[in-house]
């Protein structure tokens, strides 16, 4: 089972992100369970959403306390909420930012986890260029696909096309492809770079 936890704020499409990831997994023949953890509807409040992916029926319903991957849609949460609680030692982190982990002030994470699995991508910027709105969720999911390989970019694109009307879907797909390429490139760099 692969467990992903997505952090963001209300209005950023965090819940949709978990849902789309689950649809992409379903389209690849996997079992997926996506669910939110939130309070009353309010823009700007911290929101967490979860997605479990497995090759068999998923019965457990508790929140994900030991994620295999974390996606952070809003970097302003980094020092307000303990986002990294429970992340497995082999875990992946993908943060929506143009800066790197050191510049974000969470450089110490690189010593606790596997360096090549801690990545950032300027998702909001990419979203603005292709979609025209600062909703980074599909962009980050594409990065997640590149990063973890749990779900293919093709499946994600299909999920996007199911979810959004044609024009918006294609803009999201374009943004997704740029993000996928970006993160793949970042991973190659890290694989060749000397250890910090």
């Amino acid at each position, binding site marked *: 089972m692969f467990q992903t936890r997505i952090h963001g704020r209300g209005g950023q499409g965090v819940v949709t992100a978990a849902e789309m990831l*689950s*649809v992409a997994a379903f389209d690849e023949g996997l079992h997926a369970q996506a*669910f*939110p953890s939130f309070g009353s509807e309010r823009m700007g409040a911290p929101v967490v959403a979860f997605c479990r992916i497995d090759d068999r029926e*998923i*019965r*457990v319903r*508790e929140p994900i*306390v030991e994620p295999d991957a974390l996606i952070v849609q809003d970097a302003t949460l980094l020092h307000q909420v303990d986002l990294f609680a429970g992340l497995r030692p082999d875990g992946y982190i993908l943060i929506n930012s143009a800066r790197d982990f050191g510049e974000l002030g969470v450089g110490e994470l690189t010593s606790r986890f596997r360096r090549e699995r801690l990545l950032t991508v300027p998702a909001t910027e990419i979203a603005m260029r292709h979609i025209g709105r600062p909703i980074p969720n599909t962009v980050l999911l594409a990065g997640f696909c590149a990063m973890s390989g749990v779900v293919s970019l093709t499946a994600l694109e299909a999920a996007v096309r199911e979810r959004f009307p044609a024009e918006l879907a294609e803009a999201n797909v374009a943004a997704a492809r740029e993000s996928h390429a970006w993160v793949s490139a970042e991973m190659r760099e890290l694989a060749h770079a000397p250890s910090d």
Partner: protein
Amino acid sequence: MRRQIEGARGVAETVAACRPHVICAYPITPQTHIVEGLGAMVKAGGLAPCEFVNVESEFAAMSVAIGASAAGARAYTATASQGLLFMCEALYNASGLGLPIVMTVANRAIGAPINIWNDHSDSMSQRDSGWIQLYAETNQEAMDLHVQAFRLAEELSVPVMVCMDGFVLTHAVEPLEVPAQAGVDAFLPPFAPRQVLDPDDPVTIGAMVGPEAFTEVRYLAFHRQMEALRRIPEIAAEFAAAFGRDSGGLLHSYRCDDAETIVLAMGSVLGTLKDTVDELRDEGVAVGVVGLTSFRPFPMAAVREALKGAERVIVLERAFAVGVGGIVSADVHTALAGLAQRRHTVIAGLGGRAVTRASLRAVLADAGANRLESLRFLDLDVALVDRELARVRAHPRSGPAAENILRDIGAVAARPH
């Protein structure tokens, strides 16, 4: 065909397939996605001639359903928590009049303190209202139970509430199969009411009944629920034959055959329990789970049969009777009367607190080591409670307990001194 959809969406599409005539709805978290889905379907014309009535309160919602059902329409509504309480008078009216309304309860805690998350206190508070209560373990079961509910309700002239855990099930997106329209049409004959408002054959419905006959009328309600005990498994079996899936029934047992300890529970926590049981079984612990689906009527004989072989029975419940202890436990213990067993009640998951595998493992370990009390509140932060009790002892005007505790855990800003 399976689709990756939200539980609430699945319920909405399934209810639509049951061809309701009148849907009345008042919004309350976490049922909103169900009624929104149905509202959109009606508005787009897909459910014609169904009427969707946007009512001004839950009391109005159940009242509209009462009028509709009495006039011969298949009626549906959904609610949760405070909304269920607000329609309480109408709930008793519906069951007393014998109207086969079906309602989804998206289980949510009752305030004060106000809480929008999942537990069973809402439906439990109405356990004696005369409604049949079925609790779904999964979203698929929740959907399937609605089809069975209309059939059961209309056969017996008893209203049915299908309970599904709010947020945990309603807002989860997973692979679900909406029963096909043709299958539902074959399973659910058109509504043929036992009593109906008809100018060609006028009747008076809702007369006063005095001491001379009240007992008999009320006994008939009891009798109908006993009938339901027989019909629920039969309808579930028919459903399985028609749709190829086991859903509903009175209860089901999981790995209980040689279990020393059996945990009985209802609702979505069963999924987490089964995973926990699998882990423990791999470690050699003889533990099993009974998932209770029908809470009203309470299947005394089936529960006794399912639990009698265990040395230890733990009832895990998501509500409690203040001043007493467990609610489900009370009925379970009645079913087990005379058997020499160790019995425990674990109150868990109140107000949406997650019931985790880790906590369940700890409880079962304590049970195995005879460290489990007869009544335990799972994951209770005793220190937090003690601090509030100390505050109350120290200051006559100690303030609202909830705010004090929230301040203590840092959820609310500290008061400046």
